[in-house]
């Protein structure tokens, strides 16, 4: 363990230096970062996690708090079992569990703090530490303060010294208030996974390697938010209900992600007044109510640091979401227009 701790500390020093010059990073540090990057998939373990997500409603702060059990076999397979809401959930606990189960894949891939692209992460984030060992679920962790260079994001992250797994993270909003957090309450490094039925992806999402995989030419942004984001992956999602397809482009600043979804050409007729699952990306809210459909209009919604943009532009149904400003997402959309 001492060796791991030494590596983590040298990683920390490497990171601090990386703020001025990434060339100072050495092999062991980069190896360990790779370990942190891939730990959720490569570390066999199980544990109970507490997840908290705060929001502001009608001027008062509230929170959704729930527990879940994670089981991972260290070979990319995992199962997240919702254990119910502690605060802010639905009146019907079974319904809450069902919704959380449906989101299992997304939560594993995108919800929690993770270094998604090392080079971009080193470019955009600064790391500091009090160089002290903390305890999370009985495990020794190194606590790091991770701050985006422009100050727009701030995290406190506890990395397991032995495995590099993130055992706790706290995300703060721009006012310094807690926005979200995840913490392991228990941790088992040698779980019995006999009989565990691991997560199976329910949506048809495949890598998008050629635009011929889609029935339309997808819009592709050429300007990314604040130049801090970089391309991460392109996939094609086929909806299971009616077979509609859309392109999903994912960009990252190293930690956070921005999704750019293009559902292709919108139907000429106005969309239905009530959206239904599997209706593609036809946004019912664009109906004016007078039997006409507004074209080239987008709607913008804010929730904490998150901005959501959706609408119908240049004949395409588009949807963009990420922790970026409205101007950044709209510029991104404009840069994608033909």
């Amino acid at each position, binding site marked *: 363990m001492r060796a791991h701790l030494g590596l983590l500390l040298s990683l920390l020093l490497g990171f601090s230096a990386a703020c001025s010059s990434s060339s100072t990073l050495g092999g062991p540090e980069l190896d360990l970062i790779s370990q942190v990057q891939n730990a959720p998939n490569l570390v066999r373990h199980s544990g109970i996690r507490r997840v908290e*997500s705060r929001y502001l409603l009608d001027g008062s702060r509230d929170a959704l708090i729930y527990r879940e059990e994670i089981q991972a076999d260290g070979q990319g397979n995992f199962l997240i079992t919702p254990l119910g809401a502690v605060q802010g959930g639905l009146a019907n606990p079974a319904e809450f569990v069902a919704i959380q189960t449906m989101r299992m894949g997304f939560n594993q891939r995108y919800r929690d703090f993770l270094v998604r692209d090392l080079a971009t992460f080193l470019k955009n984030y600064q790391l500091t530490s009090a160089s002290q060992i903390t305890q999370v679920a009985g495990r020794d962790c190194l606590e790091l303060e991770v701050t985006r260079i*422009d100050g727009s994001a701030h995290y406190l992250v506890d990395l397991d010294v032995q495995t590099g797994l993130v055992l706790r993270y706290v995300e703060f909003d721009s006012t310094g208030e807690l926005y979200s957090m995840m913490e392991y309450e228990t941790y088992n490094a040698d779980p019995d996974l006999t009989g565990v039925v691991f997560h199976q992806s329910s949506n048809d999402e495949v890598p998008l390697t050629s635009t011929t995989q889609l029935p339309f030419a997808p819009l592709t942004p050429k300007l990314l938010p604040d130049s801090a984001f970089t391309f991460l992956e392109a996939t094609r999602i086929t909806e299971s209900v009616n077979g509609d397809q859309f392109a999903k482009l994912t960009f990252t600043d190293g930690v956070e992600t921005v999704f750019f979804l293009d559902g292709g050409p919108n139907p000429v007729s106005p969309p239905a007044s009530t959206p239904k699952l599997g209706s593609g990306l036809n946004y019912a809210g664009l109906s004016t109510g007078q039997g006409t459909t507004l074209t080239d209009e987008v709607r913008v919604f804010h929730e904490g640091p998150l901005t959501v943009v959706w609408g119908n532009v240049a004949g395409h149904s588009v949807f963009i979401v990420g922790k970026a400003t409205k101007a950044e997402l709209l510029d991104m959309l404009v840069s994608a227009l033909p």
Partner: protein
Amino acid sequence: MPPWIASLPQSFTSTTWASACPPQNVDSNPQPCNELRERYVADPASSESFDRHAAVCGACAAWLERQRFVRGILGSMDRLVAPAVLEGCVHEDLQLGAGFLIGVLRGLERQQAPEQLEQRLAEALIFEGDVADGDVVPAWGDLLGSLDRRPAPKVLDRLVDEELSSPSASVSRRFAGGLFRMSPPKSLLARVSSELKAPGTVVSRRRWLSLGGVAAAVLLALTLAPPLRNPSVKAPWPFRVVEVESLASLDPLARSLVNGLAGGSVQAMDWRKESNGGGL
């Protein structure tokens, strides 16, 4: 020994030259071979002594043959004369600085790439292998010309326009935005709090009025300033943008993505509103 050879690192001068002349073919010391070769390179006209040496040294005989071959190739090539204006411009550049030379270079006739290069590029980029006899190899320049011309994104127009209309503001914004944002020290917050709580800092009514007047003036200036500064300011985006307070009109699939990124808080807001009798 010519000065440029003497200036080479010792390992180069001793090993490279010596290896060209195996010891068994000389008097057990390669140094005489090296000296003779250097003398020959410096003045080929006086090659008699080297010819005599090459008659008894196989390695130097081979070296001499290669030298004559290379010299023959170089000598057979057409000698191109630099444009007269180039010499003048180089001179002027050296005297006055850069600029003239670039102009001359741009004015020179553009040379075509050798046919062999086009063929190699075609093999690597188009046919991904050997070019068959029947294949028509397009010129590289033609290939570039045949590509679809893509317009620059419209947002670039606006950004460039902003950059040109106020370069200093753009530069400031760009560099200031890239700086690490430091948090104020806690002691500052404590001092401000204590100052505000202090009884002597109660602001008088008259002062409030003057502060209000200043604020109103600033607001008025901010409202009027953009049109006065640039009457042709256009809407920044080529579509209508509507701020909304709810995700009600969003497709459930997309809404699920938003909820996932927000850790479920958007849906929790929804639930809470529903329980209060409303809905998002």
